[in-house]
């Protein structure tokens, strides 16, 4: 029981060293719990079954991510505990000289880990349970679920999972501790504290060369990801700039201390002012001893920033797009005149009857199923789309075809273009609240909103390519695509509709009939019921011979979007926060683990009469620079990383970049800044003069 008392006393004594460790553990545990308890949190929510499916998928993805997260946290905990172990070498040395066996020291460490483990798990789980209640609110808000029957939720399975995962981590820590105790030598333990720090000074000349080299490599990596994205076709192509960037980051941190010292020391007036020389030397010796960790921290921060900001951008853009891109309640589409292309549709799996019977418009088709669709609509319009095998992209691109084909070899050039009458298009545009257009008989316009396709089509339009349609020759009215769409969707995916004057259309080529409308009711439950009953029509016998119009409704688009965007957000937040905590914790631990050594240094400063204000300023500056160094480089990386990510994620919409960058900054300021302040305050306390 002596040992028990000893371990408890040790923990109490070194709580200042442990504070940030404990804080990190508690935070990690609570976040782990929150994201794993998501399923239980959503049970009480009143949401549609399709949303439930999405949440189920989300939960299973999150539990996969949790394994990854547990690895990161595991490494962090082992790293931190070894760090703290090293701090206590002298203490163990004294135990050994006093005749305590290594087995007993291991036992002390075991007990300490046990106490800290139980403490952190207890507090962490309680915090997690509290935080997860807020999570319910966020989820409910995301999925538009009503929270009238809000109840306090406790997830037993998540609790057990958290306990198991973290117990395993603590077990590994215990094994590591035991191993390192059994390996250590008494002489090293005792000498450790006395060891005179040998400053490995790097040759400033080499530092400058390495730094310049690193900058060149970095520029190369930046250019690779930003200039020509089409060169990065495969996954392994993106690994090259990542590897280059990582190497450059390492080299920059390797050379940084020497470089900064060289630069600042040459400004003697600044260097020999107040404690500047001391602050700078302390910083550079610290950076020098942890080049590798700083590199890892910088890269983690980089990933965090990119992850958070691009995830939030996609989420915000998607949610905003929905309002614009799904402006009416429902759109039903039926395919007509399928017999003109019998083999094509046959190959798609439609049966002979369905193909033969494809001569009804949407409303008539619903009537065949004894369903009066129009009676549910407050207002509706009908429009048609036409297509012919004589007008594909091969034709619309005209003389520019080969040029474009060599640049974009994978576009579907043989797909028939969708054609609309100008009157029909304007009807849709009016209904959607989009801009209407007018046309002469010999003109056409292309309506599109998919950015990459607009770029392709604009090449041809700029060249004023004419098209031949139903015996007429048409020239483009504008030398660019105009903005607009017909199909409702969550993203900008309209690759182009050729809009022409009404009187040149040959009705034989009618291929799609659309019905667009707004429901009479606006109550969500009733809409769900209505749409479910329309879906149920598909189960009737008639559906074997008649093809039911396919529907895309505002509600279904919204659910799919929210599902995807929330998945992206949750994963981004989960990983982002864990990365952020890990990197800040490592920095904080490093600073604090040396704070006791530093106490003597500050004592010296006090004895030669340094003002308290000057000492605090020096401490603040050093901690601040130490925390900022990896962050600044990560921010520079992120500028290019985000540019790259936005290009990749273009389809999902990337309009909402600014708010997500602001959100990301808030996250970083709170978590990273929080760790910085805790570290600074703890250091200030440790070096405080004791009278």
């Amino acid at each position: 029981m002596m040992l028990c008392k000893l371990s408890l006393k040790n923990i109490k004594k070194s709580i200042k060293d442990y504070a940030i460790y404990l804080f990190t553990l508690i935070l990690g545990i609570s976040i782990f719990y929150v994201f794993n308890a998501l399923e239980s949190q959503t049970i009480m929510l009143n949401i549609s079954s399709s949303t439930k499916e999405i949440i189920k998928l989300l939960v299973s993805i999150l539990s996969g991510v949790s394994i990854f997260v547990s690895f990161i946290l595991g490494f962090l905990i082992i790293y931190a505990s070894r760090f703290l172990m090293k701090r206590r070498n002298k203490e163990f040395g004294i135990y050994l000289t006093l005749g305590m066996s290594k087995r007993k020291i291991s036992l002390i460490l075991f007990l300490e880990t046990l106490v800290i483990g139980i403490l952190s798990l207890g507090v962490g789980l309680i915090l997690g349970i509290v935080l997860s209640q807020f999570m319910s609110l966020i989820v409910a808000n995301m999925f538009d679920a009503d929270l009238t029957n809000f109840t306090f939720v406790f997830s037993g399975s998540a609790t057990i999972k958290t306990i198991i995962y973290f117990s395993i981590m603590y077990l590994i820590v215990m094994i590591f501790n035991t191993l390192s105790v059994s390996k250590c030598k008494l002489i090293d333990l005792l000498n450790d504290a006395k060891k005179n720090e040998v400053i490995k000074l790097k040759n400033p000349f080499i530092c400058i060369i390495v730094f310049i080299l690193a900058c060149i490599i970095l520029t190369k990596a930046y250019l690779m990801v930003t200039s020509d994205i089409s060169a990065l076709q495969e996954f392994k192509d993106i690994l090259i700039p990542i590897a280059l960037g990582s190497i450059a980051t390492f080299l920059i941190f390797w050379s940084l201390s020497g470089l900064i010292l060289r630069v600042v020391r040459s400004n003697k007036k600044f260097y020999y002012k107040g404690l500047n020389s001391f602050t700078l030397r302390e910083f550079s010796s610290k950076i020098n001893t942890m080049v590798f960790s700083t590199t890892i921290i910088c890269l983690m921060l980089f990933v965090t920033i990119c992850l958070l900001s691009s995830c939030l951008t996609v989420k915000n853009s998607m949610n905003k797009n929905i309002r614009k891109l799904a402006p009416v309640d429902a759109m039903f589409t039926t395919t007509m005149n399928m017999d003109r292309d019998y083999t094509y549709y046959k190959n798609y799996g439609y049966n002979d009857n369905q193909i033969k019977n494809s001569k009804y418009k949407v409303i008539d088709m619903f009537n065949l199923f004894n369903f009066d669709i129009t009676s549910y609509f407050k207002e509706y319009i009908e429009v048609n789309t036409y297509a012919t095998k004589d007008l594909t992209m091969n034709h619309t691109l005209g003389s520019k075809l080969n040029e474009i084909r060599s640049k974009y070899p994978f576009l579907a050039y043989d797909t028939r273009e969708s054609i609309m009458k100008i009157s029909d298009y304007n009807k849709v545009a009016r209904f959607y609240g989009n801009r209407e257009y007018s046309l002469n008989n010999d003109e056409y316009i292309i309506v599109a909103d998919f950015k990459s396709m607009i770029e392709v089509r604009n090449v041809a339009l700029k060249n004023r390519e004419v098209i031949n349609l139903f015996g007429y020759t048409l020239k483009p009215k504008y030398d660019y695509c105009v903005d607009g769409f017909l199909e409702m969707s969550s993203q900008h995916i309209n690759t182009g509709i050729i809009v022409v004057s009404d009187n040149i259309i040959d009705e034989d080529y009618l291929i799609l009939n659309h019905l667009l409308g707004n429901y009479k009711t606006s109550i969500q439950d009733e809409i769900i019921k209505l749409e479910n009953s329309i879906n149920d029509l598909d189960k009737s016998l008639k559906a074997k011979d008649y093809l039911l119009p396919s529907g895309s409704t505002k509600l279904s688009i919204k659910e799919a979007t929210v599902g995807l965007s929330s998945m992206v957000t949750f994963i981004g937040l989960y990983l982002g926060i864990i990365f952020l905590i890990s990197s800040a914790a490592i920095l904080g631990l490093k600073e604090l683990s040396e704070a006791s050594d530093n106490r003597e240094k500050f004592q010296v400063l006090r004895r030669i009469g340094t003002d308290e204000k000057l000492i605090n300023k020096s401490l603040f500056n050093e901690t601040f620079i130490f925390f900022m160094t990896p962050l600044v480089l990560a921010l520079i990386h992120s500028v290019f990383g985000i540019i790259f990510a936005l290009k990749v994620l273009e389809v999902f919409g990337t309009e909402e970049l600014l708010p997500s960058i602001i959100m990301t900054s808030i996250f970083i300021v709170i978590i990273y800044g929080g760790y910085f302040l805790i570290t600074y305050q703890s250091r200030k306390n440790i070096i405080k003069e004791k009278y």
Partner: protein
Amino acid sequence: MENILKVEKVSKYYGSRSSLTKALDNISFEVEKGEFVSVMGASGSGKTTLLNLISTIDRVTSGKILVGGLDITRLKGNSLNKFRREELGFVFQDFNLLDTLTTYENIALSLSIQNKKFDEIDLKIKKVANDLGIKNILNKYPYEISGGEKQRVASARAIITEPKLILADEPTGALDSKAARMLLERFEYLNQELEATILMVTHDAFTASYSSRVIFIKDGKIFKELNRGDNTRKEFFDKIIDVVTLLGGDLNDAL
């Protein structure tokens, strides 16, 4: 002669009322400008407590300490720091050099915290390095130089601000005899040529024999004072040894 240090009826008690330890008991003495005074005593005699009180690291229980006419027991906070910075120079047993800074930067620090201009700092360091014979190690780090050199660097840091009083706490404690002799000769030089006032605490008779006056402390009280007068260092040393013998076995290790 001008009075630099005046210790007036200073007492320092430790512990609670029930178990009181009188580390210093109503002690009084004066140090005049240009003196080199040693305070000797066994472990626990109160000599380190005395130094801590004068250096304002610790506070008196009663009494006054005047440095250049200023009662330093009443100083607080930043004026205390200002006092240490401008009036005192410290030399410690374990050197207390900052290991991340070069010796030049270590010495410069005590001036730069006084907001002195670099040109002035540079000039003074060159002079003091000359005086103390550390010119060729100015660009080295503490781990690259010997203990004796470290102590001379520490001394340079102490005197560069031209303090009224230099306080040395067992300055030769961590040095071998050759390095100790070299350091003490430098102290003598500082004292005689630059008129620096030095108060040194030591338990080593040899070290003490370099000073002009030795104050012996026992159980918190002044036991005896010895003036060097016209004695040679050797004669003075023998006198000190006599007193040490008188003081009893505690100081035998000094031999």
